[in-house]
């Protein structure tokens, strides 16, 4: 059944961004992450935002879909906004009322940190929007493979990421079903003090947990019945190869990173 969850989900389109090698796309994301952390001016962040917008345009994913995908994360932006705005007391005062003091420095920091976090979310979202969970999983496992000899469970990590992304919409769907079923039995979802609230949530959370365990059990049986035994000696149907577009994409992003370090 269709359900309006876009967070972490793949959206198919025929685009150059979709066709990029997943290993390259993961690397690009990491480069942009580093660039966002190194950026120390608004201008630098705006360059990165512009780059993300160019990627969205190239990917042919609808802007509305991108907005929907980032929106659930938006509430996390409140934290840098809030703390920087109210807890920085250096700089000249812009507004003060009782214990509340907002300074120009605080406002600048609030805006800067919020934009930086937003760019991180947007960049990560672009990766999941344009890379199927299978490709993403294969990409992660290919990139982590060199570390296997140091004991890193590379294959297991990539499998976990794939499964988590795959079951995110299922989790929301289950939650919706359970919520409706309990509402039809007269459940009140939010009312009263904190202890009462937790008690009211039990009729939702216990079935959700039970249902997730059922999914996990079914998935385990399905995997075992197809002789799944982890990553050792496993060959792949898809063999990744780096093409011209991949090289160009890496070149552009690396140049921006270097520019960021040198000038901005």
């Amino acid at each position, binding site marked *: 059944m*269709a*359900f*309006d969850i*876009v967070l972490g989900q793949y959206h198919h389109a025929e685009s150059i961004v979709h066709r990029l090698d997943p290993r390259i796309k993961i690397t690009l994301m990491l480069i942009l992450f580093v660039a966002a952390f190194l950026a120390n001016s608004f201008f630098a962040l705006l360059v990165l935002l512009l780059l993300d917008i160019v990627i969205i345009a190239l990917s042919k994913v*609808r802007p*509305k*879909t991108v907005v*929907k995908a980032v929106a659930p994360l938006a509430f996390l932006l409140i934290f840098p906004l809030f703390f920087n705005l109210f807890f920085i007391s250096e700089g000249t005062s812009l507004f003060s009322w009782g214990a509340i003091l907002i300074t120009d420095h605080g406002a600048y920091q609030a805006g800067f940190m919020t934009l930086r976090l937003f760019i991180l979310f947007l960049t990560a979202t672009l990766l999941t929007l344009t890379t199927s969970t299978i490709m993403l999983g294969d990409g992660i496992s290919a990139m982590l493979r060199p570390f296997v000899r140091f004991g890193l469970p590379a294959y297991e990590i990539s499998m976990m990421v794939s499964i988590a992304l795959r079951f995110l919409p299922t989790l929301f769907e*289950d939650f919706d*079903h*359970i919520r*409706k*079923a*309990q*509402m*039809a*039995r*007269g*459940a*009140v979802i939010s009312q009263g003090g904190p202890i009462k609230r937790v008690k009211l949530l*039990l*009729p939702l959370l*216990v*079935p959700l947990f*039970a*249902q997730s365990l059922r999914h996990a059990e079914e998935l385990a049986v399905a995997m075992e019945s197809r002789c799944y035994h982890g990553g050792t000696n496993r060959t792949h149907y898809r063999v990744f190869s780096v093409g011209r577009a991949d090289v160009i994409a890496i070149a552009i992003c690396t140049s921006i990173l270097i520019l960021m370090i040198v000038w901005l």
Partner: protein
Amino acid sequence: MSLIFDKVSYTYSSHEGDVNALSDVSFTLENGELLGVIGHTGSGKSTLLQLMCGLLTPSAGSVVLDGENLSDKKVRQNLFTKVGIAFQYPEQQLFSKTIADDIAFAPRNAKLSEHEVGLRVREAMKIMRLDYENYAAKSPFELSGGEMRRVALAGVMAAKPQLLILDEPTAGLDPSGRYELTTIIDDYHKAGTTTVLVSHSMDNIARLSDKVLVLKDGHTAFYGTPAEVFSHSEVLREMNLGVPQATTFAADLMDLGLPLPADLLTIDALADAIAALFHEQKAEVKHGF
């Protein structure tokens, strides 16, 4: 409880565009009747049911329960004491430590006295053929699938709904579980509860329903008495929905030249008709000599 759907449409909107799950559906269900709903996966059955119990409100048209329009927010408040719904796989909603507690959830939410709640629980368990002494204190999570299903349905019945809505209640049960549950539903409806039943078993729909609604892509394909609806056997087969076994068998016999009546829907009716034919012929044979 009477239920009227008047030109009801429902549209889900998502980022990928709108889905018209239901378009222009109308029907009237009188107090005490049973409405059978059939249709393919995705034809809008579950959406229809959610409109009946106020979990969704129509995008257009109106749903009227005993003269009250469900688009009115005040009417939807505490509707759960009048309308009970069991979704597909209702056992997924179980959460309490004991079966009795789980069944008591709706009556407690209706703020009934503990004494009354206890009575409701016993009554609902009796209807669902769950032995109170045996089951009440058990955890719902240590039951078999079929037992969990019955506990969940008891949890819906404990609210004593005047309109009972069941979305594929027998899905995933073994034949004996299906048979038992169908019998329970039939008895409960005959005791006077207006019922809406979604099922993929044409035999059960034909046997139990007063009215049948066939949905196709959110539109009404057919609506009427079981005899009327199942007379369109060709179209129903094309829709991959099929007709009751008895109807198919009767049609085959008629092709072989047996003069059977046209609207045989249940195995009992078919058996009676064949027996009547047999007696008639025996009588003719006797006269002949």
